[in-house]
């Protein structure tokens, strides 16, 4: 415990910088994945063939180990932030895509018909019927993706993208368990906070949601 306190006294600035890098990396990866997965997933919910391709693609992405992907990307994209982001996006896409497709397909067709009967155009239908009903599923996808991203972002330290992984790998190299504990603990805490936060949000959205 003393060692932890000493660490924060000596390297406090460095620690927060690493947390910042970790969060930035995770946030950017999530944003990029959302831009790809939401439209694709929505399209997939309309076209079963697209959905099938999405699912197959997701399964394929899941097979590739993230560390291997990071190193495979080096010849193509070099080192640093860009290859790290690509690897993390590849990790985040499967849960996002699958849940987006699921979210939009489970919307009751009757409700859509009611919308049409009320004179809604396609855009209104999407905004006022489909999206709110699919939202809990979408959020669940975001939650799963983000937990995955935060945990795996530690690996990005290998290719110079920084983050809390630096602390973990330094600790492993030096057999300094304080570093490993602080680094690993912080990553676990971030993941846990994401999980709990999103669970609360999903509960709230479901409670306020239309149809209840």
């Amino acid at each position: 415990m003393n060692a932890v306190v000493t660490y924060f006294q000596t390297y406090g600035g460095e620690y927060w910088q690493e947390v910042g890098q970790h969060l930035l990396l995770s946030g950017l990866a999530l944003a990029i994945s959302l831009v790809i997965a939401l439209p694709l997933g929505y399209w997939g919910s309309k076209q079963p063939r697209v959905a099938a391709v999405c699912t197959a693609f997701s399964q394929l992405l899941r097979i590739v180990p993230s560390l291997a992907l990071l190193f495979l990307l080096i010849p193509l994209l070099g080192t640093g932030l860009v290859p790290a982001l690509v690897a993390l996006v590849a990790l985040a896409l499967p849960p996002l895509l699958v849940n987006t497709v699921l979210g939009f397909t489970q919307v009751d067709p009757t409700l859509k018909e009611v919308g049409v009967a009320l004179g809604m155009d396609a855009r209104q239908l999407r905004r006022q019927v489909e999206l709110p009903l699919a939202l809990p599923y979408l959020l669940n996808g975001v939650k799963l993706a983000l937990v995955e991203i935060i945990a795996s972002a530690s690996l990005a330290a290998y290719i110079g993208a920084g983050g809390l992984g630096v602390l973990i790998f330094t600790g492993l190299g030096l057999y300094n368990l304080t570093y490993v504990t602080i680094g690993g603990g912080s990553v676990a805490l971030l993941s846990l906070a994401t999980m709990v936060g999103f669970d609360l949000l999903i509960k709230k959205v479901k409670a306020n949601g239309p149809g209840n």
Partner: protein
Amino acid sequence: MKKRLTLMVLLALVTCLLAIPARAATITVGSKAFTESELVSELYADALSRAGFHVVRKQDLSSAVIYRATQTGQVDLYPEYTGTIVLAYLKKDASGKPAAAVARLAARGVKKLGLVTLTPAPADDRQGIAVRTVVAKRYHLKTISDLQRQASHLRFVSQGEFDKRSDGLPGMERVYGKFRFKRVTDYADGLKYRVLASGAGDVAPVSTTDGQLTSKQFTLLKDDRHLWPAYNLVPLANRKVIEQHPKVARVLNQVDAKLTTATLIRLNRQVTVEGKNYRQVARAWVKKHLKGGDLR
């Protein structure tokens, strides 16, 4: 009649089995997670198995883990460096000391931990600092003192371990003064030359026997204030193993006696620059340089 025959055959078999001498002693050879350590551990492993030992390899361990694993006996021996033992593990100051003194400090220091160092090789793989030659020319960098003055223009390609090890950056700052690099980024150790070559960084901590340093693309800076002592290659072993099998020490000392700095650079180069497999490189070397007599 048939029964008796079976019995006789069985008896013969058992006698045969008993006649086979006890299984060859097992030696676990470890290495750290970088090319030279893998290579030299493979030289040791190959020489030992040629000398009749059953060799188990535990390669690519982190540098702190392997030191402890050798004390507990999970690893019997691995290639280490006299300077690393003294500075990083025993945390003693060895700046400016001659190679023999560093080796003595190392040998004495590990004794209490149940470890023993064998005879150090002539090969000396020091810690060093390399810069891209283009950058070295632009900022007139020849020594680490020059680097310290120009640090604010340069990006440091580091590893977390070097940033914190007492013979790493903290040691440099103690001897040369604060290095205010434009940026310090940590990478996996194996990537540093690639990062330098791609222009994403300018300066990196290196080993002076790295094969890549034979290229004109990189310039090794002079340690003008003698921060780093000699880092002679030396087998570090669990003492019990050497006591039980004195032959292990004999074989490894034969290997070590032939390992010069030039040899190490050439072997490293074959792996890191020419892309050969370190096991094959090691095997070829042992085959060529160790005669039957060395392994007895």
